[in-house]
């Protein structure tokens, strides 16, 4: 395994007004591994992903991908880094106005990496990888079930063979069987592409299926890191309370801020 982390965060801090959402995050994700970030609602998981993607500018800290601090890059440099990243959004975020195959091939067409005919062929191949027939490519996203939308979102994320994959709550809103199917597809895709992945989730079964490593975020800080297989018996009181869904423990729900 390489010594240099694929993704390296140091002192990452983000505030919205006087609310500190990320409070000095340090995190390393090694090449070819999957990191699962767990944490309650509002713990800063989505903001963390958006900072790494460049959708939100952090207030302090560094984000290194392959040893390059992406925050120090110009716009072209950031776009080049972003082109290496695929993202599966929580609700799919498929483009309603385009048929499924154009959604899947959007990145290829946007970067002029393929003609429309080649892009369509590539989209059909990737759709088959996630278990969807070529005929699905002609449908609109609104005609698909939730599980199919997740598959199409996954197909779009992997279509350009990215080196880094992000998954935002990949199994939210799915039944347990469909959740397991999506997790299986995610693991297959990550292994096939040899990508490095970060997934954020509330779903403990999903976390253990997807992740090699896991980290827990609480009030903007990483409070625990370890092997994903150890999640259910971490020995950390916060992680144990969260993973077992206990009402009593060190984490108290803030009903009002």
């Amino acid at each position: 395994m390489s010594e240099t982390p694929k993704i390296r965060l140091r002192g990452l801090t983000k505030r919205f007004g006087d609310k500190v959402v990320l409070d000095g995050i340090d995190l390393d994700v090694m090449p070819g591994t999957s990191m699962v970030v767990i944490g309650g609602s509002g713990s800063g998981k989505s903001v963390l992903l958006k900072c790494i993607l460049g959708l939100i500018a952090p207030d302090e800290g560094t984000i290194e991908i392959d040893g390059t601090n992406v925050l120090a890059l110009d716009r072209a440099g950031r776009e080049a880094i972003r082109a290496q990243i695929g993202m599966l959004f929580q609700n799919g975020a498929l483009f309603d106005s385009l048929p499924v195959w154009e959604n899947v091939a959007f990145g290829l067409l946007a970067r002029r990496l393929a003609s429309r005919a080649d892009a369509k062929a590539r989209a059909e191949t990737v759709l088959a990888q996630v278990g969807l027939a070529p005929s699905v490519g002609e449908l609109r996203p609104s005609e698909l079930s939730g599980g199919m939308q997740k598959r199409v979102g996954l197909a779009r994320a992997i279509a350009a063979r990215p080196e880094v994959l992000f998954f935002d709550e990949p199994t939210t809103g799915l039944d347990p069987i469909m959740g397991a199917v999506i997790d299986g597809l995610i693991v297959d895709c990550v292994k096939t592409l040899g990508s490095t992945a970060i997934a954020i989730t509330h779903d403990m079964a999903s976390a253990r299926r997807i992740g090699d490593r896991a980290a827990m975020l609480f009030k903007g800080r990483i409070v625990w890191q370890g092997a994903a297989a150890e999640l259910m018996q971490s020995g950390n009181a916060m992680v144990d309370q969260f993973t077992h869904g206990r009402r009593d423990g060190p984490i108290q729900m803030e009903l009002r801020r």
Partner: protein
Amino acid sequence: MSGFLDFVASLGRGLIGACLGTGRLTLFAAEGISHIFRPPFYGRQFLRALLEIGYLSLPVVALTAVFTGMVLALQSSTGLSRFAADSAVASLVVLSVTRELGPVLAGLMVAGRAGAAMAAEIGTMRVTDQVDALTTLSTNPMKYLVAPRLLAGAVALPLLVVVADILGVLGGFIIGVVKLGFNPGIYLANTLDFLRTDDVVSGLAKAGVFGFLIALMGCYHGYNSKGGAQGVGAATTSAVVAASVLILAFDYVLTELFFAR
């Protein structure tokens, strides 16, 4: 005394807010315009926007223009007959339609139809992460969503106004001939005698500006919407109201520019 100070402070806050909003809108417009001229260009997005703003607005603009021409002929006939100036009906209709009512009414109709649809579509894309998804797929949302619509708005509305001008005059002609008893040949001669090129050109120039403003308001409010369905609804309302007010304000400014002596 403290009540007065609170009042002044609230005025100041309002003024600062208005300045900030104007600044944000100006920067948004400048960035959108700059992307019109910088590659990559999204021709399909432009054609789609042209279809939605232009072609799909044709029925409502056509109906508005015909009825406006008809009403104008009727109203001007009753008014002008008091001065025994009935023969001026045709020229009054054509000048009113080409200079003023064609671009303004077409603009207001398109603001209500296409401007609202634009704000709702982009607003929904914003709150469902589709705008962020564009960014992650190496596509600048300003270039992909905003620039084609701004250009399409500025191109489509003058084309619609050409149609509105013709149908508005036709509406007046129908009432003039059928109801008011004008000779068709004389009515048409009066229409053409008093019409100058700059009457039509000024109306089309106004339409280009109005089309740009409608698209700008639709894109700006949609792009900055937040808070789910309610936020998208608020953005849509703001887009239509702002575009309508701006059309009327710019109509005055442009009329002053074109016709003030």
